[in-house]
């Protein structure tokens, strides 16, 4: 078995909404696939089907060699799942939460206790192990949740937006743990709205929108796919930023995100000849340019050009 997760034409509707619409995925054993997409793209639905929580109404999927619909218990023996919300029992202590999962996985009592202690230790929760989980910080709860999904040493792990809502320090801590798991050979499917997270953790990325994969490859391949280069323009007068963006957008016919923090307007440049035109048009518009650069696109821009909307941090920035 070299393929740990495979999905073919997965579909699922909720009422009139087609949440998944022919999703195809393949994750090699030991690899990390980042499933990247905006809210409502179908990421969580995909994970829930692969983790046997939800039935697909079209297509099929195999996880760790077993069909998710026909052999769900075989799949469940081999997966760990951490959802968007820390699914820990707040009224139980950290130790009790992990012991509970161990017992449900049929570990003998001493073994369940040993495994709970081992995981608490690993996730730096040993000191808090005896306290009710409701006294934990957000980062601690997420770590406990991840620990709970690892009790059975699953070869395949699903993480659904594991760091959403965490502060940067907790997020980095969680990333470190995830990298360790991957180094140990765990196959990982990770959903995220954060390009940075996909870029940091995933060996391959599948961009998903409206319930299907619209692009996939390594981060480098995706960047190359968007086409050559990105033209960045920083006007001398920050007040000209909006106008500069409009000039560039008109030129290429694509959207032109402007970043108010860095005072830069950036546009994908599929035709190198446009560079000269851009300079002329900016000059005609009377916009003095402080900085003009050509560079490879960031994953943010890849995302924007593929889905037509900015990724999450981008949206948060423009909303702020």
């Amino acid at each position, binding site marked *: 078995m070299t393929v740990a997760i495979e999905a073919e034409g997965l579909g699922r509707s909720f009422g009139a909404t087609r949440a998944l619409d022919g999703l195809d995925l393949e994750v090699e054993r030991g690899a990390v696939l980042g499933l990247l997409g905006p809210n409502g793209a179908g990421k969580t639905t995909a994970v*829930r089907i692969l*983790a*046997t*929580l*939800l*039935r697909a109404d079209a297509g099929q999927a195999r996880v760790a060699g077993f069909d998710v619909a026909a052999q769900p*218990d*075989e799949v*469940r*023996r081999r*997966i*760990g*799942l951490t*959802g*968007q*919300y*820390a*699914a*820990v*029992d*707040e*009224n*139980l*202590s950290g130790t*009790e939460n992990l012991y*509970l*999962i161990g*017992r*449900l*996985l049929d570990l003998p009592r001493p073994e369940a206790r040993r495994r709970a202690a081992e995981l608490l230790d690993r996730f730096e929760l040993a000191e808090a192990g005896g306290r*009710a989980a*409701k006294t934990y910080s957000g980062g601690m709860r997420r770590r406990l949740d991840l620990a*709970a*999904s690892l009790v*059975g040493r699953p070869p395949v792990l699903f993480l659904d937006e594991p760091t959403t809502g965490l502060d940067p320090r907790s997020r980095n801590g969680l990333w470190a743990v995830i990298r360790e798991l991957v180094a140990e050979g765990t196959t990982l499917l990770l959903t995220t709205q954060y390009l940075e997270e996909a870029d940091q953790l995933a060996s391959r990325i599948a961009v998903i929108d409206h319930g299907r994969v619209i692009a996939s490859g390594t981060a480098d391949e995706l960047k190359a796919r968007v086409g050559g280069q990105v033209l960045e323009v920083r006007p001398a007068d920050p007040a000209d930023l909006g106008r500069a963006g409009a000039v560039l957008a008109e030129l290429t016919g694509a959207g032109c995100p402007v970043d108010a923090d860095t005072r830069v307007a950036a546009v994908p440049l599929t035709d190198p000849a446009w560079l000269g035109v851009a300079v002329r048009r900016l000059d005609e518009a009377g916009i003095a340019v402080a900085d003009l650069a050509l560079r490879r696109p960031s994953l943010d821009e890849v995302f924007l050009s593929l889905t037509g909307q900015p990724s999450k941090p981008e949206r948060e920035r423009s909303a702020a």
Partner: protein
Amino acid sequence: MSHALTIARRNLLQVRNNPQLLVFIVIQPILFVLLFTYVFGGAISGSSRDYVQFVIPGIIVQTVVFGTVMTGIGLSEDLAKGIIDRFRSLPIARSAVLSGRILADSVRTAASVLVTAAVGMLLGFRLGGGPAASLGALALVVGFGIAFAWIAATIGLTVRNPETAQSAGFLWMFPLTFASAAFAPAASMPGWLQPVVQANPITVLTEALRGLTTGGPAIGPVLRSLAWIAGLVLVFAPLAIHQYRRLS
């Protein structure tokens, strides 16, 4: 089955870290016994002492029935917090989550019943039917609690939100428990209400408990209580299981 026991144990462990639950299980029945006995006792039965013997079975039934709302709240909380997702991602029987919940709630019910009876005894309530009849009364009321827990489970799995589960679970219980012979004799109520009160399962169970705890006639109401238990379980257990399956 061992998985159901493990989940039941988890539900019971929750009580230790959740004072709200403890209040519900222990303090509420004590308050009800004291309030009903001293506020209504004189008016209904002429004296608090006479009323205790009459009202304790009624308060036990009310406590058990109200307590089942926690089954629905607990399930909808576990759903909302993703805990049921976690259980469903494990290789355990689908039924373990529901049966573990109801098992734990039966233990909780029995504890509430014993607390109510103990406080009643301090105020003069006496078990006149002997140990077998008293144990039979406990078994009957716990069975009735299980039947009502399936109703609450159906509600909790349908609304999937703890607040809604609480209001939807409680609302209909007030008319149900008060329009019964739990707290006042049916004969004291207006004629049009009496048939409703007589048919009410709360009345049926209360009369069975009164029979079993005073040593009076009990066969009729006990059989009718068993019929209610069977009927409710037959209707609501499949409904709750259906709603649980609909999660996928």
